[in-house]
């Protein structure tokens, strides 16, 4: 089947190595570009190196937890969308995450179609957001040149 959809640049951050490996294979199989990190700090480092469209971020990780990482992403890379991966007992934390600026959350084990849909929504949201930022920049630029 030919998919006409654009590939999404995804960064998966989760300490469950096997999960990350299999999920990435599956996402790549669905035509997306995937990078991985096994803890919050290397996830943030990967974003500093090159931004992506969407970060799939596990909430419960040793070291920096998901919410801390989310906050850091929203400061340094505000346009990058974050989808939180939550376990059974962490839905409350997911709600906190949404208030902190996550785009959405999915419960593990996730339904793949649902996940793909959310990834696409997040990417579209980012594209829309970027467009508005560019327009605003252009307007600001015009105002400035008008002042001169």
């Amino acid at each position, binding site marked *: 089947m030919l998919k006409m959809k654009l590939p999404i640049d995804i960064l998966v951050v989760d300490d*469950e190595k*096997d*999960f990350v490996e*299999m999920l990435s294979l*599956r996402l790549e199989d*669905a035509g997306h570009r995937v990078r991985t990190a096994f803890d919050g700090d290397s996830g943030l480092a990967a974003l500093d190196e090159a931004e992506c469209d969407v970060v799939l971020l596990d909430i419960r990780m040793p070291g920096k937890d998901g919410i801390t990482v989310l906050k850091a992403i929203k400061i340094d890379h505000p346009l990058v969308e974050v989808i939180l991966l939550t*376990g059974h*007992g962490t839905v409350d934390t997911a709600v906190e995450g949404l208030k902190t600026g996550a785009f959405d959350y999915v419960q593990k084990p996730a339904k793949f179609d649902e996940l793909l849909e959310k990834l696409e929504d997040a990417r579209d949201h980012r594209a829309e957001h970027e467009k508005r930022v560019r327009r605003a920049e252009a307007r600001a630029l015009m105002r400035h040149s008008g002042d001169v």
Partner: protein
Amino acid sequence: MTDPPARPRVLLVDDEVDFVSTLGQRLELRGLPTLTATNGPDALDILDDNPVDVVVLDVRMPGMDGIEVLRRIKERHPRIEVVMLTGHADLETALEGMRFGFFDYLTKPVQLPQLVEKIEDAFRRRCGEQADEHEVFTDKLQQHMIVADRLSSLGELAASIAHEINNPLAVISESAGWLRSVAGRESTTKSELEASCERALDKIESAIDRAVRISHNFLRFARAPDAIVREVDLGALAAEVGDLTSKTAANAGIEIEVETKPGTDCSIVSDSYQLRQVLLNLVTNAVQAIGNDGRVGIVVGGDRSEAQIEVVDDGPGIPEEHVERVFEPFFTTKEEGRGTGLGLAVSRGIVEKLGGRIEVDNRPGEGCTFRLVLPRQRG
């Protein structure tokens, strides 16, 4: 009203035919007249035609499930007491069953003495009910509160379990999904498919192993046996645990020293078997915390009212942010496969049951002390 019989008349309901007939015979041997049914509708028919005091009812059955059967029994025969049998996966269902007023529940695999005890308790409840409605009402309320309390802590644990089991489940789910997408592609060659199968099956198998370990540990946790209380010599216990752990420790360059503070009365009344399990757990943790080269002290001390065993290590100590969480079920910093995060949770449960407590003195960078504090007399 006719006098109640001397022994409870039992109806056993479970869809596993062999289980029902074997258990039925064993109950008969214990002097409990037992009828059996292998599905809900049959059970309800039997109850309409036969006097029964206690129903032992499996939660999970094809067709009409245990909860529905329970609901109907309570509707038609409110005085019959019901003991539910649940698998460990059905605890949430068991919780639901509480609303319909079962007497108590047992986790499968069932141990006969326990089951007989529960049946007899339920029977006493039923006889009592015939004696004095009011007293029984408060009594029943209390009983329900006890069950509710037990189930709510089980509920908490069940939530942790669900979370822990979901992790391997997520691995299995992604592996299977990926494999399906590889297999569904027409361009996939046979050798590609074989390699993919190999890779995905590896992940699936190790995820299953992990889930099994979690469920086994949970069962051990849930089935902490009742205490067998007698006089225990803490000095001898410490020495025994020192012996048991010294070899593994020595391999990592760690020395274990057992010591009794001068003037200590080492004798207490407690459960030596369970204390040994706790102490072994604390010492093993200390050894693992040190990693390589160090010293673990097992120090027996205390005063007239309380006895103490300290497990002192000179490892790195516990990071401040973890101190609060070390007793949480499933909290672990060990690598996947090395620890389940249940050791300290179980240990604390045991020690509290024995009337004592576990204290932690954390010295980040210098080591850590876990102190077992036990009453000299139980209760």
